[in-house]
């Protein structure tokens, strides 16, 4: 088992990077603790796969160091790292049976046949693949094939971390759920560190103890799913985590006090540097709707109602013309054109200055 430390680690595919924009992964400091599950989350091309490939040794970083248990492995070849990786598309050795597939990494490392047999049996039980051991691997379904890919990592006794590069993309939604649960189970049983790369926030939220959000090769925020949801460090995280994204309402400075005509805020908001962009971030989940004549901090006219099964997303136009979204279950008696009262708890309204969360909160 190992603790993985990224020390000022960055990578540019150019031989002579001139400025920040030339980096696929901008230098970052991160520590992945032993035995935890992590998710690397971000839009396509944000550098998450580059980071994963650096950890597995497929890509050698142009800057910084990579440490496994305080040992520098930056230049160590893939084979010698205690890392297994599962790719987006299931990789199986198509001419081999499931058993032979699982045994392959051990055979390559010259492990004794008796030991191989025992390990394969153990891993097959863990993955519920016992019944399929003697079947040709190519006959299995996509999710079972993905389990074999995972199994080839688990079977090795030297593996301390499993890197999962969007492994659930090609899996059916129902199987996706099962496989994700299976991964968590394996993490609990084996204590292996797991790092999942994904662009699906719900996948990241339900899988990981800690999520690392990235954009344009730059780390945006790292924290538990709860932290990312309730305290997004910047407007990108607020936008990327949560569905629908966080409401961002522009504030104006009047007599040294921040405010907006759209909502009557009781909150005392400190003004940052004069002339900077001040915004109020409110999660749609934190916007509650009441009748127009009940106590409220602003009135809004319903523009659109989207039904998402149990919940609904209501888009309201506030007094100033600003739109705000509310995620609510009380959409039964609502209709487009109706005016409702809006309420937001003081603690749920976050101040962003130039896109970054104001520290005073």
């Amino acid at each position: 088992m190992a603790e993985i430390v990224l020390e000022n680690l960055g990578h540019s595919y150019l031989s002579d990077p001139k400025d920040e924009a030339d980096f696929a992964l901008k230098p970052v400091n991160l520590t992945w603790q032993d035995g935890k599950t992590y998710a690397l989350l971000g839009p396509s091309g944000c550098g998450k796969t580059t980071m994963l490939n650096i950890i597995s040794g497929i890509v050698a970083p142009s800057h910084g160091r990579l440490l496994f248990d305080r040992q520098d492995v930056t230049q160590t070849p893939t084979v010698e790292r205690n890392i297994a990786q599962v790719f987006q598309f299931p990789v199986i050795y198509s001419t081999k049976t499931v058993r032979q597939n699982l045994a392959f990494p051990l055979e390559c490392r010259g492990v004794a046949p008796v030991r191989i047999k025992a390990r394969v049996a153990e891993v097959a039980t863990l993955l519920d693949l016992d019944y399929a051991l003697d079947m040709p691997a190519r006959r299995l379904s996509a999710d079972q094939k993905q389990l074999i890919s995972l199994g080839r990592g688990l079977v090795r006794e030297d593996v301390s971390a499993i890197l999962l590069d969007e492994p659930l993309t090609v899996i059916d939604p129902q199987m996706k759920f099962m496989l994700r649960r299976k991964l968590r189970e394996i993490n609990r049983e084996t204590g292996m560190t797991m790092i999942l790369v994904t662009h699906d926030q719900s996948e990241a939220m339900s899988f990981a103890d800690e999520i690392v959000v990235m954009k344009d090769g730059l780390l945006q925020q790292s924290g538990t799913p709860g932290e990312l949801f309730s305290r997004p460090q910047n407007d990108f995280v607020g936008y990327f985590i949560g569905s629908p994204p966080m409401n961002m309402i522009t504030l104006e400075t009047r007599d040294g006090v921040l405010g907006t005509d759209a909502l009557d805020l009781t909150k005392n908001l400190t003004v940052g540097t004069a002339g900077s962009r001040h915004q109020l971030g409110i999660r749609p989940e934190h916007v509650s709707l009441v009748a127009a004549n009940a106590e409220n901090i602003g009135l809004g006219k319903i523009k659109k109602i989207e039904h998402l099964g149990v919940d609904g997303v209501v888009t309201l136009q506030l007094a100033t013309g600003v739109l705000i979204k509310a995620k609510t279950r009380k959409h039964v008696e609502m209709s487009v054109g109706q005016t409702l009262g809006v309420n937001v708890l003081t603690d749920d309204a976050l101040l962003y200055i130039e896109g970054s969360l104001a520290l005073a909160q």
Partner: protein
Amino acid sequence: MLSSKHFFLLPAFLTLVAIILFPLLFTIRVSFSSWDVFQSGLDYIGGKNYGRVFADERFWKSLGRLSLLSLISVSLQYTLGFALALAVWKQVRGGRFLRVLFLIPMMTTPVVMSVIWRTVFHESLGPANDILGMFGVGAVPWLSSATGAFISVLIVEVWQWTPFMFLLLLAGLVSLPREPYLAAAIDGAGTWRTFWQVTFPLMAPITIGALIIRLIEASKIMDTVYVLTSGGPGTATETSSYYIYIRGLRDFQIGYSAALSLVYLVIMIVSLTVIAKLLLRLLVGKVG
């Protein structure tokens, strides 16, 4: 039933009739006639021509020779083509130049190349024996001995068609996904294991396609034999198509050569289908 839209099929249908259907049906009809130099015309002699085909030892021997030649030459072409493709696949210095160079044999006319090779193999004047002589090897009867002539035809075939295999297999290699190789590297597989467990199975569909295309082409071998050895010495390099050519266009036994052609066609269709199925089962593991 027949509406105006079907008339749009007419040009294609007429072309098909003209170039495939009519010649085929006409050949079938001719094969039941005794059309030759003495008797030109479509009489009807029943299955006599077919009876003669089954008793014609020279035809069956030429078919056996053809099978041997095709199997050996196509296997060699595949092995060499794959080796060359693997060599050029990974970025090699001057790879682009080599790629063009490898394709030259395929682009030249078989007859022209056969003439050049005949000169190369010439026993007293050709450079082949000259070069061997430098290493102390005596004159090899390239074209005048049965084995020598067979090997000569084989060499020319391999020389000419390896580039085709090379091209198909290289195209296949270039389009292979990257992940299986990364996975194999992480699993700790060396070069040899990676080739047999990753590259070879991934290349199976292309392998089957390439082998079948080449087998079909190789079974029609005619020009090389015609120019290089004329089927000789004796009948040592006579292949089926060359034998049919002799019977049909040299002896003018039109009816008999039509029967030979049809028997040959049926054998080819059946055997190539069987070979394709076997290859599928062997390489991809598909049943049926």
